[in-house]
């Protein structure tokens, strides 16, 4: 048993994630490829402004819906904008939305979840509110929120984040409630540690691993949700290209110019696929039950 725990719990989970790529080798090709694909996409998106050949917003009526050429690597969209530049810049925004939604929902969910696990009185109220939020279909809530705030980047992130929060809260709360029963937590009580201290020092670190996994899933689903919001006409404005709104604009031309959906769709799917695969891998690595069985 102790031998089985040794390679993983040696480091703090966050540090553990950093060493993930090293351990991925053991898990076979899938996660390795996923990691490489994701790294390439992230770097390509991060450095986009340095190499894109055209302004992704520059409209040129003469070049509407052109096929690939030397001038336009992947052709142009219905406004004569360069598809390649838009897809690359779109990746930047889509990834930002994904990461933004993940970070915001995980941090808010963690805070609320810890409070909920700590204060019994707050717990019942918070959980009722969370139940209600979960009951409202997230996509309808998101459309309504975007309609409320206008289709800005932040309102889209907010719209995607809000429905995710209850899920994070529940996760954190369930970890808190389980770990609260662990003898080492009871020992801490016996040692006279205050409740906030126990929450933060003993309980919170236990949430990091599942939250990391949850975070990757939120990130992936946020990118996807953004695309769906764009499809339904409640996405980010076209002045800010995202994979979602490039596809949403391109869907009118699905049959005459499939590349308008194909390229952003391919990048989006590859990216989400990689994130999900890595999320699964991280979960497998971090889930002690699974580890135990395989030991």
């Amino acid at each position, binding site marked *: 048993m102790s031998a089985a725990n040794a390679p993983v719990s040696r480091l703090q989970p966050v540090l553990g994630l950093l060493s993930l790529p090293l351990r991925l080798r053991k898990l076979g090709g899938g996660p390795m490829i996923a990691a490489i694909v994701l790294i390439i996409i992230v770097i390509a998106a991060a450095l986009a402004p340095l190499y894109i050949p055209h302004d992704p917003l520059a409209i040129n009526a*003469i070049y*509407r819906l052109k096929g690939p050429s030397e001038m336009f690597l992947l052709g142009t969209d219905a406004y004569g904008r360069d598809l390649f530049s838009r897809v690359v810049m779109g990746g930047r925004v889509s990834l930002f939305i994904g990461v933004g939604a993940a970070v915001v929902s995980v941090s808010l969910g963690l805070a609320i979840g810890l409070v909920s696990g700590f204060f019994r009185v707050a717990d019942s109220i918070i959980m009722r509110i969370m139940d209600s939020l979960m009951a409202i279909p997230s996509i309808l809530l998101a459309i309504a929120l975007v*309609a409320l705030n206008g289709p800005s980047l932040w309102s889209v992130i907010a719209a995607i984040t809000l429905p995710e929060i209850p899920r994070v809260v529940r996760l954190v709360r369930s970890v808190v409630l389980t770990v609260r029963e662990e003898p080492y937590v009871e020992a801490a009580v016996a040692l006279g540690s205050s409740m906030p201290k126990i929450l933060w020092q003993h309980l919170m670190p236990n949430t990091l691993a599942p939250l990391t996994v949850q975070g990757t899933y939120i990130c992936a689903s946020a990118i996807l949700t953004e695309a769906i919001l764009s499809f339904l*006409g409640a996405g*980010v404005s076209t002045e800010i290209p995202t994979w979602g709104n490039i596809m949403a604009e391109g869907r*009118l031309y699905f049959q005459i110019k499939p590349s308008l959906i194909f390229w952003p769709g391919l990048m989006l799917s590859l990216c989400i696929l990689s994130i999900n695969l890595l999320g699964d891998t991280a979960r497998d690595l971090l889930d002690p039950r699974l580890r135990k069985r395989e030991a």
Partner: protein
Amino acid sequence: MLSFKEGLLDKTARSRGASTLRAGLIAGALLSGTGLATSAQAEEKVITAVMHSGLRVIDPVITTAHIVRNHAYMLYDVLIAVDENFTPQPQMASWAVSDDKLTYTFTLRDGLLFHDGAAVTAADAEASLKRWGVKDSGGQLIFDVTDTLTATDEKTLVWTLKEPYPPLIDTLAKQSALPPFIMPASVAATPATESISSFIGSGPFKFVEDEYQPGVSVTYEKFDEYVPREEPASWMAGGKVVYVDKVKWVTMPDSQTSINALLSGEVDYMEQVPVDLLPILESSDEVVSELRDPLGYQSIGRMNFLYPPFDDVKIRKAAMMAISQQDIMGTLVGNPDYYKICGAVFGCGTPLEDETGAETLINGGDVEAAKKLLAESDYDGTPVVLMQPTDVPSISAQPIVAAQALRDAGFTVDMQPMDWQTLVGRRASQSKPSEGGWNIFFTNWGVPEINSPLINPMLNGRGNDAWFGWPTDDALEALRKDFIKAETLDEQVAVAKQIQAHAMDVVNYIPVGQYLVPQARSTKIVDMLPSPVPVFWNVKKED
């Protein structure tokens, strides 16, 4: 199994089916001689048409939405209607004008029946016209000078004026945006701010209430007792002869789906096909695309006259000079066969067409001149709040291209994306642009809705009572009065020319081009009338 499903899954459908059956029975009993069995068994001719939008509102007076107007043409009839030469023709009624031009006498023709079997009387017409007059801007002008409007007997309606109003017949005959449809007097008694809830008209089609799903589909069935005029159909005038049993309008959430449905024979007709998608249809022998409406739509930009910077005519001019119709239309439509560069506020291809003052617009814009003008003006860099609708394809390109042009000319542009419904709400706000108001937005009008000073909503200088943007323009109002007084087409054209020049001079609004929308139909659908309003009389469906 099936009965279980019936019970469980589709109660509504079943009860609806039952009530349709009941309605059918009653109708069958009323029809002397026509056996129910045979009428039900006969091969029904149904045209399924994909319309540009879903029907949600059924009152043509409360809204000017095109789909509601189209619906009204199915259900209701009009007293007089314009033909393809823009000439008013008798439809439900013939008319006579007294020599002093103060008394108009309308005489209803014989055989007019409402769908509930009641005869159409002059009293119905009177009530309908009065309700329309509250709402329609052209109607308001007539009622401003009306002395009396009374039904003197079952068939005769007398309209007396305090002073001559030459365009009265033109106004009554207009096909858009709000033609005076004739409803039963009881229905027309509904206040003009409340929606009617009756589906009774006297038009060539009846409403099938059980099959109405707001926003999804609406079904019309041939009104057998409708007596068409003898003359051949021409635009909204002439004999409305119906050759099909039913017309079903459906809405589809996107054009791609509609086209596929048309290609696979699931629907017969598609009212609007995006120009870019026409190539898909070319591959099929069973589908043709064509231009039904030769006039199309005028796309416009409108500025807010209440707040800086566009309260300053110089700055408005600079903005207009920066804009090129070619750029906008090229981006919006692409294929030059489907748009016209047109600087006429009354539209191109209309009797009042004139392009005075629109030179820069139609010649690719003049950014340098715009820059110069802007530099001379008091423009201080205040951001221009440009409302950009994100969910309506036909207005998607205008704001984006215009924003680029304005920025090129030196404007600071704050393009605010929003859905169209937010835009229509917000454009009604007279707040400061920085506090929830706006500076400029774009929209489209069917050309028949703007082709005369009487109906063009933008060309109204009555300040707060004017259309969004609220210009106060006494000179414009004076010119409109002159137009009303004009008795011949030549006189009208002369005044219209002045209005065009004035409108461009003060930049009342910016026409950014005229575009055409092709329709597509199955080759089985023949003899469709080439009118700006899609109508389903005269059309035949071959086997």
